[in-house]
């Protein structure tokens, strides 16, 4: 790796000052599992690396049943899936946290880092979008909030302005009769990058037979993770049925804009969006009925 200076601020204010005064000469590091690979390969260079793992707010996990979950941006995946109450409350989030990389990667990689890395294939991003996640951002002008679906702007690029950092992701408390799921297609069982990933969440009515609302988001089928709004909205108010799920999956397919690359073709990926939209919807419905 090219030489760089390393600083480890212990507060948001300190981090923002460092970031604001160094402009594009600085890279933020949380778990480092993407960032250090990119630095070593020369895809990213920075004379200054800011390790944000020493900032308390970025390590904070707090859940309030009336509001929701505030997940510090540097909290590693294993802390999420080892937390039994989180696992019970947000099984869809656990789907993602427990399949990113292997155990070694999960010891370091964070959901916040996955979102900031803004890979089209980021495995945690679709389900966080589906769950209505919001980015809490701190910067020189104070704090601001941005829905997760607006945060990734291009491959490897995000909406953070000069001097800003992602502090946490807020995920609203799940409503009654709701469920969420993330699944991906990979040729292996573990340790792979999604050919297609789909995250869905559904809210059913008290009978469990009708959709109140649904949100669907896709990975690896466009330059950024895609919020397939029309697909989810098409389910609102409808009875749970194969036809409704089929129609939503077709809308999700039309929201996808995949490319052909070494992991899959446009045709295969479009087909898989349909398959995995149906599968994740059915799984989310099962979870909603069970909980």
């Amino acid at each position, binding site marked *: 790796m090219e030489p*760089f200076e390393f600083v480890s601020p212990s507060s948001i204010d300190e981090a923002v000052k460092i970031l604001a005064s160094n402009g594009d000469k600085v890279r933020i590091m949380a778990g480092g599992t993407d960032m250090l690979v990119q630095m070593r390969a020369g895809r990213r260079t920075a004379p200054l690396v800011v390790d944000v*793992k020493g900032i308390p707010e970025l390590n904070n996990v707090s859940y309030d049943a009336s509001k929701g979950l505030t997940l510090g941006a540097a909290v590693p995946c*294993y802390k999420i899936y080892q937390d039994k109450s989180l696992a019970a409350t947000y099984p869809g989030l656990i789907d993602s946290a427990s399949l990113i990389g292997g155990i070694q990667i999960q010891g*370091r990689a964070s959901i916040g880092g996955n979102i900031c890395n803004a890979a089209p294939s980021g495995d945690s991003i679709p389900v966080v979008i589906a769950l209505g996640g919001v980015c809490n951002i701190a910067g020189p002008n104070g704090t601001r909030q941005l829905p997760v679906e607006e945060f990734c702007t291009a491959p490897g690029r995000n909406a953070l302005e000069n001097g800003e950092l992602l502090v946490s992701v807020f995920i609203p408390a799940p409503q009654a009769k709701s469920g969420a799921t993330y699944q991906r297609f990979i040729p292996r069982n573990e340790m792979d990058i999604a050919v297609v990933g789909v995250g869905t969440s559904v809210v059913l009515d008290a009978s469990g037979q009708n959709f109140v609302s649904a949100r669907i988001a896709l990975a690896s089928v466009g330059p950024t993770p895609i919020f397939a709004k029309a697909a989810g909205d098409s389910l609102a108010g409808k009875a749970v049925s194969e036809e409704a799920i089929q129609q939503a999956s077709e809308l999700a397919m039309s929201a996808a804009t995949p490319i052909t690359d070494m992991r899959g073709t446009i045709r295969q990926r479009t087909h898989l969006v349909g398959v995995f939209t149906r599968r994740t919807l059915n799984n989310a419905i099962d979870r909603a009925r069970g909980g």
Partner: protein
Amino acid sequence: MADVTQVKTTINGEEVNLLCEPRQSLLEVLRDVLGMTGTKEGCNDGNCGACTVILDGRIVDSCLVLGVEAEGKNITTIEGMASPEGLHPLQQSFLENASLQCGICTPGFLLASKSLLDQEPDADEGRIRHWLAGNLCRCTGYDKIVRAVLQVSKAK
């Protein structure tokens, strides 16, 4: 060249003071600064697990940790696995089951297996295979490794 930084850490129970550059990975620090060559470099990008060490109780790929991040941390490497009394039961089991050929992946597999059984002494085959998915071996076909870990596990 960036300035070297002083790092105070604990490796295999011993306090270590070292100097490294921020750009050096923990893997490079272990091998090149401290001469602890038991930790192996495989892919150097977090895919193969050959450089696995235990950092504050969790396995990590030491190629994806900076040496400066070791400040104040507790690290276990393969050099800390056997005791003066003899090999760790997993090391013994790897020998008995012929779970290694070229040996490059072995330190990583041993530390990953140790961390699993330390937390879940009765891990079954499925759990072992899942836990070891971040470690690659091009020689054994994995089965002998899994059998060796299963022999030490209390799952029967």
